[in-house]
């Protein structure tokens, strides 16, 4: 059952990612991105990373997509702004460079370093319910308490930054 769900979701995820890149209309692209993000959330669930799936839906498919759509609506190019891509010649380079990279990766994977290497530490065994929201809660407010509090300061900096850049002359 899990395997069936995985394959269905994975195919939809890849298809929507392709559609996102290939569609000319940016709004359609944004909608395909929502589909893609939703699929990835399901993949997280299959790995029983529940909190991650939740965050994916609430933050990415929810909040960040709203921002994307607004940004597209603000920037949607008028007729006068859609010219031919000035960097078109660079596309010729893309294929050979990509091929070289692929070759490099293949060579590295086949190299002796990779074959003979011993992992420095065995992957830690995950306890039951590791990705569950209860575990995350315990980790976040005990072991990772300090990063958690720093996050609030980071969000504060983001708030002040938005005000500094977006707000007209403060009254």
């Amino acid at each position, binding site marked *: 059952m899990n395997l069936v769900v995985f394959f269905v979701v994975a195919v939809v995820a890849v298809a929507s990612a392709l559609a996102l890149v290939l569609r000319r209309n940016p709004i359609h692209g944004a909608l395909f991105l929502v589909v893609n993000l939703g699929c990835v959330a399901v993949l997280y669930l299959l790995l029983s990373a529940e909190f991650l799936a939740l965050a994916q839906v609430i933050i990415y498919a929810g909040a960040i997509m709203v921002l994307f759509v607004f940004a597209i609506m603000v920037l949607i190019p008028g007729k006068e702004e859609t010219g031919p891509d000035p960097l078109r010649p660079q596309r010729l380079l893309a294929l050979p460079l990509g091929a070289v990279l692929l070759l490099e990766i293949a060579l590295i994977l086949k190299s002796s370093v*990779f074959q003979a290497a011993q992992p*420095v530490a065995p*992957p830690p065994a995950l306890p039951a319910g590791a990705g569950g929201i209860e575990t995350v809660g315990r980790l976040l407010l005990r072991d990772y308490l300090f990063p958690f509090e720093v*996050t609030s300061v980071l969000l504060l*900096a983001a708030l002040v930054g938005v005000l500094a*850049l977006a707000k007209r002359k403060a009254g």
Partner: protein
Amino acid sequence: MDAALIPLLPLLVVGGTALLVIVLDLLPPRDRKGHLGVVALAGVVMALLVSLGLWGREGRAFRGMVVLDNFALFLDVVICYAAALVLLLSTDYLRRNDGERGEYYILVLLSTLGMVLMAAAADLIVIFLALELMSLSLYVLAGFFRGRLAAAEASMKYFLLGAFATGFFIYGIALIYGATGSTALDRIAAATRAGTRDPLLLVGLGLLLVGFGFKISSVPFHMWVPDVYEGAPTSVTAFIATGSKAAGFAALLRVLLSTFKVSQPDWTVLLWVVAVLTMTVGNVVAIAQSNLKRMLAYSSVAHVGYMLIGVVAGGALGAGSVLFYLLVYTFTTAGAFGVILLLERGRREAVDLDDYAGLAGRHPVLALTLALFLLSLIGMPPTAGFAGKFYLFGAAVRSGYIWLAVIAVLNSAVAAYYYLRVVVYMYMRDTEGLPTGPAPSFAGRLALAIALWGIFQLGLLPAPVLDLAQAAVAPLLR
């Protein structure tokens, strides 16, 4: 005071000041914000004094995620000096450019907090958050003068490339976590000692180096530097050039020297090449610049190359010289940008080389000050630049990297050309339409005086500070 909070003291002072300034910004008077600068400055100076007072103490807080040692304290001092100089230079500059708003001081404090946290972080997640806190504030500060196209370009480029570099960084963290099962630096170190050369670990380290390379602007991750340095408000440029580099080197040194000590042969080879490329590209391209801010941007790239020599040399002398040079570089660069931001021509800032022709006739004191900072950047005795370079290159020779030292000395000779060119323009050319700066305010004069004191203090009596710097890196080398 709870003993467990002592390692956090410098952080709490800076962070608390940031929150205080937020509250004060909401209270009257609404039209003048100069007092916020004074409060911010007081907080930074307090953090500086606290750091000096804590010297020699060791401790950890929050399950070892934040560490207090001499290394963190030394860099706290460097960062707080940078922030204090920038704040002193800012108030007057902002008022002249109609950009005096409370958000500026808040963001400077928050990015200072990120830098101080980076120096004290002992967990990759904390390093990441500190990096983001610092960068996010700096992205906004770079575009703080919203009416200017160059500022918007600077902010946008800095943000896009910075976010991209952060992506590399966090990918590296993920791979290292995958290889060792931990993000804590000491546990990663223990895992690397147990078994080395796991390719996953090395790839992870490589990705981390990309992220750090961007923050300290080493070649080939220096593309953003000239545009950002040119477009950002000059006070912010000074902060990006000094504070964010010090913070980047702090985390880089801690990760390389203490966590990845086992892989030293691997990353030394890599950094050798990067150091040579960085100083050469920086110096050669700087020759072609006619805009002073861009010239100093490329020169700052070259100086990163010099500092990387110390990282390659390693050991107490090499790493200690890096810390010493960071302090020297902070005084010198903040001072040089501090003179530039005082000068105006017409209604714009005087940043072209031509603007400086004959400056010595009109503003003899400012011209002499700028000349001294430029001489320190060249590395002329008796300025601090000489002592700093002497220690760095000496460390390279001591560790057997003779060629690296030779290349660095050649580079310094090339660099002398473009620095001296500015001096020649100031003293030996005449032109009409000289830059007219308003008389520098007391704060501005104080900042330049402190920077001058710094380059002569460190230039004439470098040994005590170098001893402190070597003591500071000792905890990393244990």
